[in-house]
């Protein structure tokens, strides 16, 4: 079958690219064919776990703490509200 996924997005970790591609393909197929038709079992979970580990490692290496960044964003909103 012809490969129709010619264009792909990059992962934040170059080493995670292949894992991301495989997971995304699994997810897109499952989402359209199964999830939207009422099936809840996600067979892409094992692929996702491996991909997720790779991304976490890449973020750590780049010193990007997403959780911390999200907390900071919320903190900014809460702390710096102008007086009403």
């Amino acid at each position: 079958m012809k490969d129709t996924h010619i264009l792909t997005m990059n992962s934040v970790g170059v080493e995670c690219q292949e894992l991301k591609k495989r997971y995304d393909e699994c997810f897109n197929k499952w989402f359209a064919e199964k999830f939207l038709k009422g099936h809840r079992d996600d067979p892409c979970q094992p692929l996702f776990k491996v991909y997720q580990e790779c991304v976490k490692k890449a973020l750590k290496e780049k010193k990007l703490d997403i959780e911390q960044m999200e907390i900071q964003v919320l903190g900014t909103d809460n702390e710096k509200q102008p007086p009403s």
Partner: protein
Amino acid sequence: MRIWTSEHTFEHSWDTVVTAAWRKYPNPLNPSVVGLDVLDRSIDAEGKLKSHRLMSTSWGMPGWVAKLIGMQESAFASEHSVVDPENKIFTLNSRNLTLSNVLTVNEQLTYSQHPTDPNKTLLKQEATVTVSGLPLCNRLEKMMTDAMTNNANKGRQAMEFVIDKIKKEARELTTEAHKCMDNVLPKTNSL
């Protein structure tokens, strides 16, 4: 804080639009979105699909320039979304992580099935912009919201582009299937 809202109707079913939404990037209309990763994904007890994604965008300048001025090569944004397949509602909430100490842009998108026509989908978009927790002054507000309107239009064009791409793929598969059948049938008939 500026609130900007926009509504749009897609002439496609909710299933088609939501499927396309996951495949929105890459597309030629948003070239600065360079990376997309799923950080977390799960189905909750009510059967809703929850996802947390990290988006990387380029600054539109060479990487070395960004580094020179002390920025990371990419800017990052965080997106949380929920797909409710029963009620046919898909909500996405995204906000920038980079420069969040200076500026916060928060955007919410809701895709829902048209109330009277199941072959149509409604998209409601809402964005707020806050500068260091203080409201933006008028001129800067207008510039930001004009940019958002422009980007929203591009976003919608991007969706149409992706929907067309998926439909084209489906047509090509059908054509291939027909070709296979045509090749097989005459041979069996001649037996």
